[in-house]
């Protein structure tokens, strides 16, 4: 009997240690996963700033001329990022402008208006669009959007560089961020309290009035979250954009039919050697890109809060 209870104690101790071991193992994984974002920011910040420090091995760069420069020439080692930031903002916000109304109305249609089979069909189409890799969108853009713009430009008697243009980038990005915004808007609209709608009907509003004034307004917060994610994707999209952007050396580009240069296309352009200033400066661009995404997120949040005040 005594022997058995000893065995039992041993087993209990073993089980306690086993628990402790696995708990710490799981905890360590959680810490690693959550530290990654900090590691990414720290390392890219350190590398991105390094060309502007006095002890930089390939010659110190002037941070002011980097941030305000309107020319980017790899061959002459002139790196000015200001016009690239403006180009990125233009193409990102323009594509948001195109995709946002389409996405929100599609989401509204899927959840509130369409018969169930059609709603499901559109939702599946959105899911498939979301899962198409960006490089495939790039192939589509090069083979379909670019020739389309070339023809359009010929029709309007405008010169283009074979169709690679700001307009091509905007159309491509609109298509790419459409599923992101739509699927998040669908979730947001589904979550709207049915009582609000009933109240609206009880007050004599039509179905359309209810949909547009009550449903969309209540789902606003989620819809704007979708817009933020969509904009982030538009700014950060690299491979597909670099296939149609054309990489202009100066700017900014306001003409829809002119070639452009975004931050991501700059980071991918002419990537050959993995040392030297030309390589390191890409990390500085990456750092600026992360800053732009962060600031535009804050800006959209600000807009969202302002709209909330008007309608409250």
């Amino acid at each position, binding site marked *: 009997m005594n022997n058995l209870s000893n065995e039992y104690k041993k087993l209990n101790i073993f089980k306690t240690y*086993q628990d402790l071991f696995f708990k710490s193992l799981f905890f360590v994984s959680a810490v690693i996963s959550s530290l990654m974002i900090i590691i990414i920011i720290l390392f*890219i910040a350190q590398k991105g700033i390094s060309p502007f420090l006095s002890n930089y091995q390939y010659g110190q760069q002037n941070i002011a001329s980097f941030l305000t420069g309107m020319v980017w020439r790899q061959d002459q080692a002139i790196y000015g990022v200001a016009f690239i930031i403006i180009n990125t903002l233009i193409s990102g916000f323009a594509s948001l402008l195109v995709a946002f109304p*389409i996405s929100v109305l599609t989401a509204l249609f899927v959840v509130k208006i369409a018969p169930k089979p059609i709603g499901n069909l559109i939702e599946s189409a959105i899911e498939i*669009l979301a899962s198409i890799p960006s490089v495939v*969108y790039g192939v589509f853009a090069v*083979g379909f959007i670019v020739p389309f713009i070339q023809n359009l430009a010929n029709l309007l008697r405008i010169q283009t560089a074979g169709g690679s243009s700001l307009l091509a980038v905007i159309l491509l990005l609109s298509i790419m961020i459409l599923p992101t915004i739509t699927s998040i808007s669908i979730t947001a609209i589904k979550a709207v309290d049915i009582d609000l709608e009933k109240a609206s009907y009880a007050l004599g509003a039509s179905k359309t009035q209810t949909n547009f004034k009550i449903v969309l307004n209540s789902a606003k917060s989620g819809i704007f979250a979708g817009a933020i994610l969509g904009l982030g994707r538009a700014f950060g999209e690299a491979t597909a954009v670099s296939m149609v952007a054309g990489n202009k050396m100066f700017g900014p580009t306001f003409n829809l039919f002119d070639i452009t240069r975004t931050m991501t296309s700059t980071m991918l352009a002419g990537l050959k050697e993995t040392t030297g200033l030309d390589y390191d400066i890409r990390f500085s661009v*990456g750092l600026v*890109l*992360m800053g732009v995404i962060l600031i535009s997120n804050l800006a959209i949040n600000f807009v969202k809060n302002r709209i909330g005040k008007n309608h409250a």
Partner: protein
Amino acid sequence: MRKLNIKDIILDGLTYLFSSVSILILITIFIFIFQRGFSSLNLGLFTSPYWSQNYYGTIPESNRIFESDVNFDKNEFYSEKYGIALKDDFNARNEVIVVISYIHPDSPFNQLINASSGINEGKLIVAEEGMIVNKISYITSNGITRSAGPVLKQNAEETIKTINQSIQLDSAFIQTQGGGIMGSLIATLMLIFISLAISLPIGIMTAIYLNEYAKYGRFTPWIRSSIELLTGVPSIVFGLMGVLVLFPITAIFGANGTSIFLGGLTLSIILLPTIIRTTEESLKVVPDSFREASHSLGANHSQTIFKIIIPAALPGILTATILSIGRIIGESAALIYTMGTYISDKPELLKGATSLAVQIWSIMNGDQPNFGLASAISIIILVIVLGMNIGVKVLTRSKVKQW
């Protein structure tokens, strides 16, 4: 009955119009990619390397007849004098080529001696069926060396006729068919293996910690939101991170630049948020009664987790795996930085290579963009991604049925 409002009609009309846009786009993309890529799509694509190998070899003398009991197709032409059969074919760029379709075991074409200068000079060339014939030089009855083959715009039939009239063959210029995706396919499989091997354990363990140990912990919201932040990071920034943070790890194993290993490590971080979120969702739906029953039977926490909770959450973990594989296959920007853009036919763990998606980028950015091949690879990627979408749907449905 309320009078129909003009404004309502316009708004409704807009809704109908806009919601058809996404379906229209999807159909356009699919039709376009399939139309452009379908003719370049064939089984040989999967097994042939991207770069074609050129061979220039001298042909030894032969004075016999190579009778063959093989039944040749109508488009194959056999030379009994030299024991070789040729046929016309198309390459990945849809150009007409002449291909070796059969070689007799004793044929002089099996004993070509490499004549191009270099380390392989004088070594035996193994001519194989499927290789492209560019030029065959022969000696005429009056001792003059002449050439036959596609170089002189001859097709298979004409080439065979010409060499049959010769006294003896002199040399042959043959090459392997390029334009395949075998290397990228292998590299992609390696990527999937490496990144899942790292990402799945860490992701699942993190999800378990968040849901089973620290559901209401003080730091749990912080951990959660910092993982959520990862989803908003553009993939090209992950590429930069891989070069900076993860390259030293691969350097320990002997990598001295871009490598598949580095690409896999980078991808494993990109996958983390998806795996953690999907696994956590599936842990949440495991009923608490399962946990209570296990504990009341005397199991400790870790036993409950490994024997009860993880098996119950398996469909969710499988969903996470499938989603991750889809992401790996489609990823390009991060891999351009970490694996390079040089298409490698023999991918090695510690050397650079391309995945299928990066191969598309690479051939579209080359000097001669090969649109047909790019579309063909796009079709392959689309089909895989579509299949996985359906797989996830089926899985989610079966998970709901379970309890």
